[in-house]
């Protein structure tokens, strides 16, 4: 997994919402785009949220804060910071479902996912696949992964 920050560039977001499509696919059981949407399995929630007001649009996901309020608020330690990548991740096993993380998140990017019985659902920086799919699939590079110097990081 590459270490980096997700940078959102609203000036290039064209509002196609393909980031949502690919986020949903990535977090589905089959990782197949058609099956994720049309298969028997319940479709997962997208970890990326699309906002628009006329021609201004952007998609936002968890900022993986340095000092994350959701980690502080978590009663059971289910929300934790990955030591290598700095990603804020959620452990379903430990989660008690108090939804305090949902309450304290300043950006509203943690959602309650009752249907899939995942108690809190959020962006995991695609930690299992190695590279964020929203970055990889954005047709206009409106979401990019940058290093500490602000240089773009591509999939290795």
């Amino acid at each position, binding site marked *: 997994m590459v270490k980096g920050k997700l940078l959102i560039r609203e000036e290039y977001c064209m*509002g196609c919402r*393909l980031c949502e499509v690919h986020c949903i696919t990535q977090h589905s059981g089959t990782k197949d785009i*058609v099956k994720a949407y049309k298969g028997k399995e319940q479709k997962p929630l997208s970890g990326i949220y699309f906002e628009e007001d006329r021609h201004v649009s952007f998609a936002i996901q968890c900022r993986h804060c340095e000092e994350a309020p959701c980690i502080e608020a978590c009663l059971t330690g289910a929300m934790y910071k990955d030591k290598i990548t700095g990603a804020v991740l959620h452990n379903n096993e430990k989660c008690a479902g108090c939804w305090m993380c949902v309450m304290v998140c300043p950006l509203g990017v943690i959602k309650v996912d009752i249907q899939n019985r995942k108690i809190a659902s959020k962006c995991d920086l695609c930690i299992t696949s190695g590279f964020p799919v929203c970055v990889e699939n954005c047709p206009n590079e409106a979401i990019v992964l940058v290093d500490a110097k602000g240089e773009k990081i591509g999939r290795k």
Partner: protein
Amino acid sequence: MAKIKRICEFLVERDEDKCIKCQACVRMCSNDVHKYDGEENTIRSESSKCAGCHFCEQLCPTAAITIKKNMYALRENYNWQKEYVYDILRQAETGGVILTGMGCDKKYKNYFDRIVLNASQVTNPSIDPLREPMELKTFIGKKPNSIRFTTQNEEKMLKTEIPPQLELEIPIMFSAMSFGSISLNAMKSLAIAAKKFGTCWNTGEGGLPEQLYPYSDKCIVQVASGRFGVDINYLEKAAAIEIKIGQGAKPGIGGHLPGEKVSAEISRTRIIPEGTDALSPAPHHDIYSIEDLKQLVFALKEVTLYKKIIGVKIAAVHNIAPIATGVIRAGADYVAIDGIRGGTGAAPKIIRDNVGIPVEIAIAAVDQRLREEGIRNQASIIAAGGFRKSSDVVKAIALGADAVYIGSAALISLGCHLCQKCYTGKCNWGIATQDPYLTKRLNPEIGAERAYNLLRAWSLEIKEMLGGMGINAIESLRSNREQLRGFDLNEVELKFLGIKHVGEAW
């Protein structure tokens, strides 16, 4: 008669098995082809609205959409082709002139396709450009008649004063496309690419937007009949100044940017009031003769202290050779010739398809005439209009051009799919539009990289072709018509191109 409701040029096919109803197509089509029905969770497509730009097809995450050509349903008739019938139907409906974009798409003979290049065999060696230096550097401008040297302290010094030159790393520049006809992001993409590669881009007649000042040292600015955006700042910032007399897509025709498109930004750049029509008259009303042109050329030279080169862009028309001679005698440092296949943002279709001559013949005719008059060194020739590949560039240079302008090819590198609907301002690729919803679709970082890649690819190909001919500098190819042979051309055509037929030795 019943009114004509639909003319379907394309068919939008949707594979329902693959469509996941993500609605990316619905959100992205500026022509409102796709409609989502929430009640039935289905997307329906209205093919008659489709411009054939393929944006939805490219974007669809499951490749569920295919845009196909609508097969001709009328009885086949060679004289009454589909296009002519539909144009009449449209005109009967609207009573107006049919507008279009891009260059002439008619099946005129393309001379580039009937010219082949030479290569070295046995009697002279070919050169491997990967192992040996290969020079593509080009200088645009007036060259001295002779060169004199003086000796100072046993060192040779150049005595002749060399007039100002425009230095290019590759004999390819980006054509004039104005702010208004294309988006700022499209201009910025080309400007960044040109600066990075060491060639020039052109503002067109719409002025130099403030955001592009950092790239102005590689920019040719146009002074056209509307004089939009022309002030001392504009002229001083530029690398060169081009007086636009005509355009290959619409020789003899002016331009009209409707008032509703003159936004605050465009009004600032063009120096005209917001919301007023931007009218480019067909002629320059202060240029009715070569003598008048000379006055403008020298006015521009005076104001820029003779430090910049002044060019004149003209459309290739029947009398091109004498006109070019006149232009050069009027003091122009280069003459840009735009052929019939030259592109446009908007032009009457009848003009685009019927007026002008192919640029291949025009270059050959002008080069020949200038040589005969002994003034070929006094100006450079830039060819424009329909350069599709690097071999076209090589052939044009061998016919006598110093450099070429590419417009459509540059836009294709930015995503253009040649749907010819530039004049509607609804370009889905964010190129020929000013709509804030659409312009942000062209990320200049990506665009610049792609345009740069195109220049790089062509430069490598040109070097390969030169190497094959045993030439190691593009200078040695200029007007080197022995490197060309024509086939499938008659004697008159060969005469005007100044080349031999295939099979004929040196």
